[in-house]
């Protein structure tokens, strides 16, 4: 049985308990033996992306020490969080130090959820059923930093009863950008409203994303627009029966 | 004599005056040529896409084509490059007989600016982009292809070059070169494409057989 560790992310932890539960169920059904290390907090992306590189180190060390307890691969429900660890953790530490070696090790065995399903487990059909009109928002770091261009759509298209409709400006940023929402709230608002407009125009009743951050942003935006369209993490779609 | 900017640059880069030049990275291979007929067809097609008018023409057809051009565009004054080929084609004679006043291509800029039509050749042509490449000299003054509202370029297949690589290899020491790709245009006002802002509004390209 393959083993893996759950990386629940700070946003998942605070706001998306059922998504994390679904992630657990799906992986276990696929035969993965899961562990969850409670010492994990956050990957440190909000600090790192905003220039507080020195302050990020302590956060990264906490993350690495938590996940170093096992050598099993780490799976997270967010391309940006996984990307942070995979692409930026090694650069935080001086080469030749034990911290750097640990960072390189952790970076080599961390996966985004859809990436793990499609590339490692080689699975695209998890037996989900969701008879609705569905569209997809391609989150920026998931798409560009992690290079995950086809995984989400393969999984979405394998869902029974689902009718896929394309989203205009699918790859355009939704305006979340982490702290950007509170650094330039009005610009974030314009970008969010643009995304909401496109979602409504798609004719879908559900929009799927692979990022908790984008999910929070779009779901809130759709609510404010008085729309009944559901914003959903791909994990919750794949857990639908 | 010291140059503070160059000194700053060297200091920033950690170089000394004696530091050698690294190897310049390799450039991609140029576009390979296709058959002459295919290149001519591509070239004329690109001219069309640029809202120019390109056509094949024989020397026998020049006179009537000029007549139509003069009539269509109400040409009263024209300037023509004084090159051997254009002399041989008797361009200036035909224009005179059509009542068009000929201004010397070397006349001063105010006089050239009064011309409605400027006729040149092209020293090179690029089929991929529909580009005319013109040298500049006393025989080939720059203003003739620039100020009149109608520019006619008479070109031959021998001017074809598959890629700008070849043009540059031949023309790099020429002191002045201009690429002309279609008539003058702008989209500055509400993105509405407008032709003939400062350069010619109408571009005609006549491709001779040889």
């Amino acid at each position, binding site marked *: 049985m393959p083993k893996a560790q759950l990386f629940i992310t700070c946003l998942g932890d605070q706001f998306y308990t059922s998504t994390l539960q679904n992630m657990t169920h799906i992986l276990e059904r696929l035969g993965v033996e899961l562990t969850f290390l409670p010492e994990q907090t956050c990957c440190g992306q909000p600090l790192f992306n905003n220039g507080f590189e020195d302050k990020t180190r302590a956060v990264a060390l906490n993350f690495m020490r938590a996940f170093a307890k096992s050598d099993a691969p780490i799976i997270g429900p967010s391309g940006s969080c996984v990307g942070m660890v995979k692409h930026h953790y090694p650069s935080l530490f001086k080469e030749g130090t034990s911290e750097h070696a640990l960072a390189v090790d952790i970076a080599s065995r961390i996966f985004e959820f859809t990436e793990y399903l499609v590339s490692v487990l080689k699975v695209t059909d998890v037996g989900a059923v969701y008879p609705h009109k569905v569209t997809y928002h391609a989150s920026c770091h998931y798409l*560009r930093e992690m290079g995950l261009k086809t995984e989400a759509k393969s999984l979405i298209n394998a869902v029974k009863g689902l009718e896929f409709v394309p989203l205009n400006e699918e790859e355009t940023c939704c305006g979340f950008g982490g702290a950007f929402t*509170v650094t330039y*709230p009005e610009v974030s608002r314009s970008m969010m409203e643009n995304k909401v407009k496109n979602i409504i125009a798609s004719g879908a009743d559900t929009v799927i994303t692979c990022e908790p951050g984008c999910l929070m942003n779009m779901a809130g935006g759709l609510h404010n627009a008085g729309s009944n369209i559901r914003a959903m993490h791909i994990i919750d779609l794949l857990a639908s029966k | 004599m010291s140059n503070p900017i160059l000194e*700053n640059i060297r200091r920033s880069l950690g170089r000394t005056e004696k530091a050698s030049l690294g190897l310049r990275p390799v450039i991609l291979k140029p576009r390979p040529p296709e058959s002459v007929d295919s290149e001519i067809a591509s070239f004329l097609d690109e001219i069309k896409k640029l809202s120019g008018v390109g056509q094949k023409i024989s020397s026998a057809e020049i006179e009537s084509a000029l007549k139509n051009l003069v009539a269509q565009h109400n040409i009263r004054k024209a300037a023509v490059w004084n090159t051997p080929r254009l002399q041989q084609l008797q361009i200036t004679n035909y224009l005179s007989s059509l009542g068009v006043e000929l201004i010397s291509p070397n006349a001063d800029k105010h006089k050239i600016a009064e011309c409605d039509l400027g006729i040149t050749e092209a020293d090179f042509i690029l089929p991929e982009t529909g580009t005319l490449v013109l040298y500049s000299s006393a025989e080939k003054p720059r203003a003739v292809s620039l*100020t009149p509202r109608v520019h006619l370029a008479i070109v031959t297949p021998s001017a074809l070059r598959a890629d700008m*690589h070849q043009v540059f290899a031949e023309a790099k020491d020429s002191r002045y070169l201009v690429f002309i790709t279609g008539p003058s245009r702008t989209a500055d006002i*509400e993105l509405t494409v*407008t032709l003939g802002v400062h350069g010619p509004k109408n571009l005609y390209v006549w491709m001779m057989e040889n």
Partner: protein
Amino acid sequence: MLRPCRVNDIIMTNTPTYIGFEEYSEHVPASIPSAVQQATNRFVGGRAARVAELPQWEQLRQAGSDIRQHTIENMDVYLTRLEQKVLSAGGNVHWAETAADARRIVLQIAKENNVKTAVKSKSMATEEIGLNHALEAAGIEAIETDLGEYIIQIAGTGPSHIIVPAVHLKKEEVAALFSKHLGIDAPSDPIELARIARETLREKFLTAEMGISGGNFLIAETGTLVIVTNEGNGRMCTTMPDLHVAVVGIDKVIPDWESLTVFLKLLARSATGQKLSTYTQFITGPRRADGEFGPKEFHLVLLDNGRSKILKDPVGRDVLKCIRCGACANVCPVYKNVGGFAYGSFISGPIGAILTPQMLGTQTARELPYASTLCGACADVCPVKIPIPTILRHLRRRVAQGDEFSEPSMPAPIRFTADLAALALAWNWIYRFGARILPIINPFFRRDGWLTGMPYPLSRWTKVRPLPAFSARFRQWWNVRSTKEKGTTR
């Protein structure tokens, strides 16, 4: 309330003391994003079509990136070679360390030649140094001849887009500007307005004593200036007056003509979706013969203005690879929602966000590196592969904690918040404790399952959209499950 014209004053100043992106971006008239989006969408579509035609596009980008990298790392050699060649072609070369030096040099040349009128083709370098103001102050009429630049010159505003600077103005507004400025009754028809510009400016081209241009590239191999335009005004400015002055940044130098093939194939396609712009000129020194037209005297003013200092930073200096195509701005969702004015500088969009802080410093421009969600769309389209998001993060580090080039400039309250966050996230017992008690807040703000109207600083989120309720129950759920399964207590 910040009026849009005050933003223009800031852009026109060239040396602002502070660029308040947040403030400017909150006062953008709605007409600007909608006009900018129309323009950018068209250019993006055009670019995509041209890229699809070229199977070797990615190789071209790599070649472009490699050559520019090589050139800036050997800039001293290429500039030395360039100068030699321009001089032997009979041109003059002036070196301007600062914007003030450049202005002084151009004014000196103008004075020596009794220049009363100068016609200018579009040049961002001349905007950077505020040349027009200096010329006007010296009693010289300096006329922008690129239609978009001409319009914003009359309007007295800065550019809203790098390539189409007046795109934010409706044709009725342009007609009104022409009518007022020229004392005529101009119709609201773009074709007619262009004709009016053609006739009005033609007189100026023919009588101006000096033509001023910028330059897209400087070929070191032969001392050749390359100018890429569409309207013909660039050719007019360099053909009609007897005097031609080109103000060009030192970063525009390239090694040779073969390198140029790569950039000419990348530039127009990336900028507007044209295969080539209408006119590309290759100018080496003044004219040789009298009958050919062209200037008798050619002056190249090489502008440093902070570029040689930027070279010191191995990460930041990638910004000097830029060939000013505007493709990054065309895809940037932030730029598309605010337009050019919000960046407080002659150069806007993603490239502006990384260039301005390096030229003016991170005290003045500390807000600009944050004017991005780091989405990365710009890096995907940059023809010379400038890693813009990497440089944005690099400059954010300069602002937030300082580096070898600058002290930090992040305001204390934000640094303090970051300290608290770092503490809570690094000491996992603090984080876990916080996660348990946060749901206490819910009842005070919950409406319809969402949290709204929260106090500062969360108000900056909730004023735009609601927050989901705090509900960190996974850890408990996992513990209960594990206990049940294993039959042990934790």
